């Protein structure tokens, strides 16, 4: 783990007398390599190193009785600061039905997450309505309907010839009639560089008037995470990020990158394929995961 590596490095440095700026620079190289291997964005890593260096050259480390421990503490603190200092909750305060839109790249886990959110919100006493607005992917409507059936949550009966905008309009009507307070809209995966599809997303948003626009991003996403998140943020204004497949061994550096560049709070994480596998995002846990 990085923490162990840094502690070792400082032990060796202590044995050699005073800690110098050169020592700090060399140690920061280790931090940088570790972050890049954890998929943290290149520029974000660079800025992070600058911030840590500024503090590391101060009395806090240089005059400490245990500089290694102080250094590690700074790295950890700076990370938690970047990730958002506490779990950010879903904000569903809106006239019912409150709409939540799930957006993101192909295969990131949107449809599965929609099902998970439905179960999660119902456990919190809300009455969710699943809305299959992906009429592009083969059997996407079936997929969400099956998930809805597994947890006995009502699901809008999307017809394959409908377009996403009219689906949202009709679904809102149906939600009102059935007295459901939260609409979870599953959209088709799309590339941030597919202009017509990004325009479609704007139209869907204009119709749905969502109180939450959540980017569903794969925890194993590499350097491209920032480009993707920025584009989606520009197009529809993200209110939150859900990081999926965190049950694997991907370090999830994309989370740090996306949060620090777009400011989008990370709200939830996906921890498996079952519909129960979702929980709030805890910055402390993510920081430990990346530093490990």
């Amino acid at each position: 783990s990085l923490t162990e590596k840094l502690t070792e490095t400082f032990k060796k440095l202590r044995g050699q007398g005073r800690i110098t700026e050169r020592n700090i620079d060399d140690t920061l190289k280790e931090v940088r390599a570790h972050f890049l291997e954890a998929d943290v964005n290149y520029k974000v890593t660079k800025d992070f190193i600058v911030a840590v260096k500024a503090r590391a050259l101060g009395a806090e480390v240089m005059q400490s009785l245990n500089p290694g421990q102080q250094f590690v503490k700074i790295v950890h603190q700076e990370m938690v600061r970047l990730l958002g200092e506490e779990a950010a909750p879903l904000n569903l305060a809106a006239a019912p039905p409150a709409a939540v839109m799930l957006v993101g790249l192909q295969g990131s886990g949107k449809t599965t997450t929609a099902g998970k959110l439905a179960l999660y919100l119902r456990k919190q006493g809300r009455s969710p309505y699943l809305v299959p607005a992906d009429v592009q992917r083969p059997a996407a409507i079936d997929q969400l309907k099956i998930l809805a059936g597994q947890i006995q949550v009502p699901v809008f009966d999307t017809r394959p010839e409908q377009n996403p905008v009219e689906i949202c309009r009709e679904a809102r009507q149906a939600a009102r009639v059935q007295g459901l307070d939260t609409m979870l809209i599953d959209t088709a995966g799309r590339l941030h560089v597919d202009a017509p599809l990004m325009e479609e997303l704007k139209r869907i948003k204009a119709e749905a008037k969502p109180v939450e626009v959540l980017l569903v991003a794969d925890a194993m996403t590499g350097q491209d995470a920032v480009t993707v998140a920025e584009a989606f943020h520009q197009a529809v204004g993200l209110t939150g990020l859900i990081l999926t497949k965190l049950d694997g061994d991907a370090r999830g550096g994309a989370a740090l990158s996306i949060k620090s560049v777009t400011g989008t709070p990370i709200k939830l994480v996906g921890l498996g394929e079952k519909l129960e596998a979702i929980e709030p995002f805890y910055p402390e846990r993510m920081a430990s995961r990346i530093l490990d």
Partner: protein
Amino acid sequence: LLPKGRQVDAALLEELEEALVTSDLGVKTAVELMTGLGAAVKREGLESAEDLKAYLRRAILEILQPVEKPLEVPRLDRPWVLLALGVNGTGKTTTIGKIALRLRQQGRSVLLAAADTFRAAAIQQLEIWGQRAGVEVIKHQEGADPSAVAFDAIKAAQSRGVEVVIIDTAGRLHTRVNLMEELKKVKRIVAREQPGAPDEVLLVLDATTGQNALAQAKTFHEAIGITGLCLTKLDGTAKGGIVIAISREFGIPIRLIGVGEQIEDLQTFRAEEFVRALI
């Protein structure tokens, strides 16, 4: 991103390293390439940004050219079997549809096996691709044993003289030991029912994946033996640079790339083109 004729300096070297890292080559591979570049600059007196980029392209091509080995589907006196696998959401099912159409256009007879019996609507999804490709899909009910589906597909192909069987499996994280065991069992059953099969074990990787792709390749390769890679979603902005580290470490042929969601969006991997898009 670098104007022609620009001279070599520390800023240029940093920009080049950034280009490599942001293409997901990984810090280790990027540093090795930059070290080689540094030596080349001294040795050959390279002067311009263009010279340096040319060097990097050559160095990367040296790694990728040997794994440019397109998929060959020979005519045998038995079904030729492809097993597709990989982590969740990488594009396995879609890629199988694309491969099926390609083979049918080449006049081959193809059968698909819907061995993802776990995920909601996975079978329906593959059936639609089967219809689009004009090929039949062997399926059981949801929740059935994936090995049983593979078994049935092999038997059907053998008895009907179908030339190619492509087996779709459920996405699975390489860290899930029980799911890796399930995959090994599918391979065992296939080999038992059709000696010589599976002829191709295709790992489908998502180009947007970062360093974790290396762990995926390693674990799947050690568990089941990968004979080919398909890199999907290269129509996005991710460069898929991690295949360089994977190629260097495992030498697994890169067969195909996915460049879109339509059935014709499949291309043979060409190392030169890939490197051009990278640097």
